[in-house]
C-alpha cells in the first residue's frame, strides 16, 4: 500500500483569460518605450524640430507695402470694384431687368465668373453690404450677398436666351428671383442683409474677374493676371419704389485713382442708353472675396514635415527592434494573443506621438504667429488667430494627429516588413515623396497625387477658406491642396487602417 502523494494545485491566474489585462499590456509597452533613452531623445528632438523649423519659416516671411485692402462686412478681405449704373432707393422697392448679352472686349473667352445683373448696395463705398442677382457665363444665375455668400439659381445660358432678374427689398430683407420670360418667376433666396440704411443704391452691376494665366513649366511657375473688360446689354429696366435721384447715374466702384500707374492702360468704362431703353455697359473688376493673401495658419506648420521623419523612425523602431533582438518572442510568450499586442503597441505609440506632437504644434504655431505679427502680418488683413478656435485649432490638433498617424502607419508596416531600413524608407516615400513630385508634375497629375496618397493629409494645415464662387488655381507650390482639410486627413487615416489590418493579418499568420 502506497502513501497517497500530494500534488500541489497548478498556478492559475486570478484574471479572466479573455480579459488578461489590456491595461497591463499597455503598461508593458509603455515601459518598453520609456526605458530606451535614445527613443526619448528622438521624441524630444521631434518636438524641438517642429517648433524650430516652423519658427525659421515664420521669421523669414515679411509682408507689407501691398495695395490698400478692402474689407467686407464680415471683416474679410474682398474685391469690390465693378461698373455700377445706379440710383437711390428709399424704403422698399423692386428692381427688375432683362440681361440680353454679355461678351468679352479683348477677344479672350469670357471668365466663368463674369457677372451681369442687378444689385442693392448700402452705399457706393467699397466693401459695403449688398445683395445681388447676377447672370454668369459659366455658372448660371446666382444670388450673392455680402461677398462670401452665394446661392445657385437656374443654370441657364446667357448666350442662348436672355435672362430676367428681379431683386425685391423689404426692410432688411432681400429676395432674388429669376425668370426666362418675365412672367413666371423662380425665387432664388430670401436673405437678411445687415447694415442697409433706409436709402440704398440700386442698379445694374457689370464686372469680370481678372484673367489669370498660369504658366507652369513643371516646377517653375509664373502666374500672370490681366484685367479684362466685358460688355453687358440690359433692357426692360424698371424700379418700383421711391427714388429721390434724378435718374440713372454711373459709377466705377473701386476705380483706379489718378495716382494709380495702371490707370492709363485701362480704357474708360461707359454706360450708353438707347432710345428704346437698352443699356449697354462696359466694365471690369469683381465683387467677391479675395483669395490672394497668404495662408497665415499654414505658415506656422512647416516643421511638421521634418517632425514626421522622427515619428516614422519611432513607430518603426518600436516594433522592428523587437524582431531584431528577439524580444518579440518573449512578448508573445507573455501575451499569446498577438492582436492584443499589436493593439497595445499601436495605442501606446499613438498616444505618445500625439501628445508630443500636440505640444509641439501648439507651441510652434503660437510662437510662429507672434513672429509673423512682428513681420508685418497684422490685422485687419490678417486677423488675430485664436489657438482655441477653428481653423487654428483644427490645424494644430490635426497636425498632431497627422504625426501620430504616421507613427502608427510606420508601426504597422514595420510589423509586416520586420526590418527598420525598408519600413522607414517605405513610409517616408509614401508620405513625403508625392509632395515633392507634385511640384514637378503637370498640374492634373500633381493634384491627383495629392488626392490619393497619404500626402493629402497635409491639407489639415490649411487655414484659408476657398470660396466656390471664386475661380482659383490650386497650385501645390503655393501650399494649396485639392482636398478639404478633413478629407485630406481621412486619406491618411484610410492608409493607416489598411496597414493596421494587413499587420494584424500577417502577425497572426506568421511565426515570430
Amino acid at each position, binding site marked *: 500500500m502506497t502513501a497517497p502523494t500530494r500534488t500541489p494545485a497548478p498556478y492559475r491566474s486570478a484574471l479572466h483569460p479573455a480579459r488578461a489585462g489590456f491595461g497591463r499590456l499597455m503598461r508593458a509597452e509603455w515601459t518598453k518605450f520609456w526605458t530606451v533613452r535614445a527613443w526619448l531623445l528622438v521624441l524630444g528632438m521631434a518636438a524641438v524640430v517642429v517648433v524650430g*523649423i516652423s519658427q*525659421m*519659416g*515664420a*521669421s*523669414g*516671411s*515679411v509682408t507689407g507695402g501691398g495695395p490698400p485692402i478692402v474689407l467686407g462686412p464680415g471683416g474679410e478681405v474682398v474685391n469690390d470694384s465693378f461698373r455700377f449704373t445706379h440710383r437711390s432707393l428709399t424704403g422698399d422697392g423692386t428692381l427688375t431687368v432683362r440681361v440680353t448679352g454679355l461678351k468679352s472686349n479683348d477677344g479672350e473667352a469670357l471668365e466663368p465668373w463674369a457677372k451681369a445683373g442687378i444689385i442693392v448696395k448700402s452705399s457706393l463705398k467699397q466693401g459695403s453690404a449688398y445683395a445681388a442677382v447676377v447672370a454668369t457665363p459659366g455658372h448660371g444665375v446666382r444670388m450673392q450677398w455680402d461677398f462670401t455668400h452665394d446661392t445657385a439659381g437656374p443654370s441657364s445660358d446667357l448666350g442662348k436666351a436672355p435672362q430676367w432678374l428681379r431683386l425685391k427689398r423689404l426692410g432688411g430683407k432681400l429676395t432674388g428671383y429669376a425668370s426666362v420670360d418675365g412672367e413666371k418667376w423662380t425665387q432664388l433666396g430670401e436673405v437678411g442683409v445687415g447694415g442697409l440704411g433706409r436709402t440704398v443704391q440700386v442698379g445694374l452691376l457689370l464686372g469680370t474677374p481678372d484673367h489669370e494665366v498660369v*504658366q507652369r*513649366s*513643371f*516646377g*517653375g511657375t509664373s502666374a500672370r493676371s490681366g484685367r479684362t473688360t466685358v460688355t453687358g446689354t440690359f433692357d426692360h429696366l424698371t424700379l418700383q419704389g421711391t427714388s429721390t435721384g434724378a435718374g440713372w447715374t454711373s459709377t466705377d466702384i473701386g476705380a483706379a485713382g489718378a495716382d494709380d500707374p495702371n490707370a492709363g492702360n485701362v480704357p474708360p468704362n461707359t454706360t450708353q442708353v438707347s432710345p428704346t431703353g437698352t443699356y449697354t455697359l462696359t466694365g471690369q473688376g469683381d465683387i467677391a472675396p479675395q483669395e490672394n493673401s*497668404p495662408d497665415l495658419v499654414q*505658415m506656422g506648420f*512647416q516643421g511638421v*514635415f*521634418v517632425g514626421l*521623419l*522622427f515619428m*516614422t*523612425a519611432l513607430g*518603426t*523602431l518600436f516594433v*522592428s527592434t523587437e524582431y*531584431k533582438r528577439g524580444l518579440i518572442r518573449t512578448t508573445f510568450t507573455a501575451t499569446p494573443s498577438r492582436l492584443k499586442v499589436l493593439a497595445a503597441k499601436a495605442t501606446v505609440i499613438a498616444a505618445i506621438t500625439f501628445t508630443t506632437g500636440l505640444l509641439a504644434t501648439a507651441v510652434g504655431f503660437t510662437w510662429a504667429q507672434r513672429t509673423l505679427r512682428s513681420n508685418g502680418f497684422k490685422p485687419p488683413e490678417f486677423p488675430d488667430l485664436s489657438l482655441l478656435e477653428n481653423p487654428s485649432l483644427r490645424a494644430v490638433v490635426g497636425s498632431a494627429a497627422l504625426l501620430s498617424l504616421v507613427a502608427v502607419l510606420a508601426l504597422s508596416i514595420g510589423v509586416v516588413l520586420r526590418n*527598420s*531600413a*525598408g519600413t*522607414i*524608407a517605405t513610409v*517616408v*516615400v509614401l508620405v*513625403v*515623396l508625392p*509632395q*515633392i*513630385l507634385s*511640384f*514637378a*508634375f*503637370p*498640374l*492634373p*497629375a500633381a493634384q491627383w497625387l495629392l488626392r490619393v496618397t497619404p500626402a493629402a493629409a497635409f491639407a489639415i494645415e490649411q487655414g484659408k477658406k476657398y470660396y466656390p464662387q471664386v475661380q482659383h488655381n490650386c497650385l501645390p*507650390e503655393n*501650399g494649396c491642396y485639392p482636398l478639404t482639410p478633413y478629407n485630406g486627413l481621412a486619406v491618411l487615416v484610410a492608409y493607416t487602417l489598411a496597414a493596421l489590418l494587413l499587420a494584424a493579418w500577417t502577425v497572426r499568420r506568421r511565426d515570430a
Partner: protein
Amino acid sequence: MRWLGSLHAEWTKLRTLPSTWWLLAATVVLTAALGAAAASSVTTRICPTPCNADTTKLTLSGVQLSQAICLVLGALSIGAEYSTGTIRTTLTAMPGRWRVLTSKAAVLSLLTAVAGAVGVLSSLGLARLILPTPPDGALLRPATGSILILVLVTLLGLSLATLLRDTAGSITLGLGILYVVPILSHLVNSPTWQHRLQRWAPMPAGLSIQATKNLGALAIAPWPGLGVLAAYAVGLLGAGGVWFRLRDA
C-alpha cells in the same frame, strides 16, 4: 593585390545578400516606372508643340524615388555589418580601415552606376514612346547626371551609416536630406531661405543637373549643383572614414 583582395571580399559580401539584388532591381524598375508614369501625365493640352516644359527633367523624375532605395543600399552595406557584428570579422581579416571603406564605396558605386544606367536609359526610352513630343536637346548631361546622383546618394547612405553605426538612424537622416529639405525649399514662406536651401542643400542642388530648359531660373547651375551633392557625399565619407579609423568597431 591587397586591394584586389579587399574589393573581392566586399563584392562577395554584397553579392551573396539577396537584399542587394532586390534593391538594385527595385532601383531599375522604380526609376523606369515612375519616369514612364510622369511622361504619360503629359498631354498635348499641357504641352503643345513646341513644348516649353522640361520634359526631359520630368521623365527623369523616377530618380527621386529610386534614390531612396540607393540610400538604403548604401546604409545597409555597413549598417548591417554593425548590427550583426560582422564588422569585427571584417576588420580582423582586413585591418586597413580606409581600405575597407574605399573598397565598399567602390563596389557599391559600380553596382549602383550599372543599375542606375539601366533605369535611366529605360526611362528615357519609354519616354520617347510615350511623350507626344519627344524630348529634344542634349540628353547626355541629364542622363549621366541622374546616374551620378544615384551613385552619390548610395555613398551618402554609406557615409551616414559609417558615422552613426546604425541603419535606422542613418536612413532617417538621409531621407530627411533627400526629401524633407526639398519640400521646405518650396514651401517655406521666406524667399531668402528658399534660395539658400535650393543652392546649398544637397538634394535640390543635385537635381538641378536634370534641367534642360530655362537654366537661367535655376538657383544653382547644373554641374555646380551636382558638385554640391558630391561635396556632401564625399565630405561625409571622409568624415566617416576618420571616425571609422578612430573608433572601436
